[in-house]
């Protein structure tokens, strides 16, 4: 049948697990990319800030240099003390600024070299400037009209050029860092896109697999439902077949036992007639013997007085036994055809009435019967009564001579079934006979008790009809426990013949 392949589930798991792993890997990758981007961004921002700071400081420095030079020249030309003040205040901040620049460019050897050079040049310029200012102030006026010959001017130019080149460098650095920032971003977006694509792919694939799997599942569920329906029909078919077969057997048993009775009536009837005839002849022989004893031959006397009664006796006991057997079959078949009527049963009361009924017999046999609490069931009263009566009766019947009998009836629920146990401490049953004792006309052990071997066959047939089973656990001389398991609720109709 086209059932869904058994490995479908395993297949789905095999596909889904790596897919999910891949999906999580993609997420992890995206997160790592974000973290990486963040740290790169921080680095970049710090670098850019640093560059801007250096640039600002160089710019400040250049401005201050220009300013001090302007102040000096203004003073040299006009001797206005205001210019000198400007010069002094501007020049005062410069060395510290130069130091600053040297410090912040420590990470860059090229800029560092320049900064040191800048500092040297500044020192020389400031010395020169201070000298010229001093000369003017002390009235030793030199000719400052021609600034072209002023060495300070050349120095200033040099400083300006270095500052400019430093700023150019810093700008280049800034550009570079900006570019790197962009590259980082681009990388980030690429990684993000790849991760996103991967996620989408995984999701799409997983969805497809799940869809196919769900489809297979629902198909298999439908298939199962259909098969289940078929199975139920099959079971019903078989059940009705079995019931038909069972009914046929019952009918057969009934007819056979019935037809066997007819000849038996003749056998018994004519045996009785024969006996009557024998008595007549016997009486006649007695009379003859009284009158003339020697005229009756010994054989004739023996035939009438011993052989005939013996033969008739055997015929009688045999036919009586056969009659009992036939009656047993008849009873079994009749029981088998009886319609079962499930009803709620108080098993404790039912068992108590069985115990009460057998009380006298148990007392005579020296046995004591007791019952524990039993689960109630919904079943056929007559059938259960017969089963348990038979079992308890057997227990009373087959006690171990010389040992006081203890017979105990107990029960418990086992899922949807009720289990009843009848145990005794009697003579027990040889394990090799455990199956046999349930067969019709079969008995076990010493044949010292009346019976035809019908009770347990009857019990088993009844148990089957109640949808139950019966078995026995026993050892010779160690008692026996019969265990009956029946459904808690007998379905009406199903078992009615």
């Amino acid at each position, binding site marked *: 049948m086209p059932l869904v392949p058994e490995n479908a589930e395993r297949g789905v798991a095999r596909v889904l697990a790596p897919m999910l792993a891949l999906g999580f890997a993609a997420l992890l990758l995206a997160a790592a990319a974000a973290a990486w981007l963040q740290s790169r961004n921080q680095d970049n921002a710090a670098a850019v800030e640093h560059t801007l700071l250096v640039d600002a400081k160089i710019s400040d420095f250049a401005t201050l240099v220009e300013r001090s030079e302007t102040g000096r020249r203004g003073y040299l030309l006009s001797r206005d003390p205001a210019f000198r003040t400007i010069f002094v205040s501007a020049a005062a901040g410069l060395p510290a600024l130069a130091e600053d620049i040297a410090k912040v460019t420590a990470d860059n050897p090229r800029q560092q070299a320049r900064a040191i050079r800048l500092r040297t040049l500044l020192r020389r310029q400031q010395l020169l400037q201070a000298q010229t200012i001093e000369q003017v102030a002390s009235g030793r006026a030199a000719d400052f009209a021609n600034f072209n010959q002023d060495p300070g001017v050349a120095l200033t130019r040099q400083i300006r050029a270095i500052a400019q080149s430093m700023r150019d460098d810093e700008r280049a650095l800034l550009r570079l860092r900006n570019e790197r920032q962009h590259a980082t971003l681009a990388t980030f977006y690429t990684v993000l896109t790849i991760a996103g694509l991967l996620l989408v792919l995984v999701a799409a694939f997983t969805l497809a697999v799940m869809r196919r799997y769900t489809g297979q599942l629902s198909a298999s569920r439908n298939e199962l439902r259909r098969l289940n329906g078929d199975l139920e029909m099959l079971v019903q078919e078989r059940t009705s077949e079995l019931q038909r077969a069972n009914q046929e057997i019952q009918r057969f048993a009934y007819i056979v036992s*019935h*037809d066997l*009775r*007819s*000849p*038996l*009536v*003749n056998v*018994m*009837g*004519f*045996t*009785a*007639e024969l006996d009557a005839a024998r008595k007549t002849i016997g009486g006649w022989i007695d009379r003859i013997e009284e009158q003339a004893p020697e005229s009756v031959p010994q054989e004739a006397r023996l035939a009438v007085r011993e052989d005939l009664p013996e033969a008739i006796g055997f015929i009688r006991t045999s036919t009586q036994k056969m*009659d009992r057997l*036939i*009656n047993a079959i008849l009873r079994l078949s009749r029981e088998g055809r009886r319609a079962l009527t499930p009803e709620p049963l108080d098993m404790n009361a039912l068992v108590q009435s069985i115990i009460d009924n057998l009380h006298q017999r148990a007392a005579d046999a020296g046995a004591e019967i007791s019952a524990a609490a039993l689960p109630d069931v919904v079943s056929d009263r007559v059938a259960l009564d017969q089963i348990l009566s038979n079992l308890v009766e057997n227990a009373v019947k087959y006690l171990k001579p010389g040992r006081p009998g203890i017979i105990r009836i107990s029960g418990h629920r086992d899922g949807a079934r009720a289990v009843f146990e009848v145990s005794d401490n009697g003579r027990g049953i040889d394990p090799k006979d455990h199956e046999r004792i349930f067969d019709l006309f079969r008995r076990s052990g010493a044949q010292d008790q009346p019976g035809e071997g019908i009770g347990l066959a009857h019990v088993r047939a009844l148990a089957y009809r109640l949808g139950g089973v019966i078995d026995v656990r026993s050892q010779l001389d160690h008692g026996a426990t019969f265990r009956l398991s029946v459904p808690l609720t007998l379905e009406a109709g199903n078992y009615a013949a």
Partner: protein
Amino acid sequence: MTDHHPVNIVMIEDDEGHARLIEKNIRRAGISNNIRHFTDGTSALQYLYEAPEGPARNGPALILLDLNLPDMSGTDILARIKSEGPLRRTPVVVLTTTDDKVEIQRCYDLGCNVYITKPVNYENFADAIRQLGLFLSVIQVPDVDDQA
């Protein structure tokens, strides 16, 4: 039994032995009426309805009927006798081995007058037949009614 016509006993019984035992025990009860024995349904019906000396044409009768016959069921014969015709008032004693409840009911429904199950035990059997004989000796059997 009636004074003017001797009542014939018609025994329909397929088992010769049973028939013999029944006859013996009826005789032992002191019944001396003529007993006609048939082992199958066809010849019995033929006698009952067609024979010139049969009960339909000639005189009252009492029928002992076994239900298990080789050629037809005893209940069919019972139904035929009790339905219509001259023999519908003729007493029918069903004497058979069947003790099935349904079968007994059916026979009474069809109009059987007495239903007796043959006991297997011969003492009981002989006893039952002798009592039946005593019973036969006192019952009144109606004349066959030609206008019916």
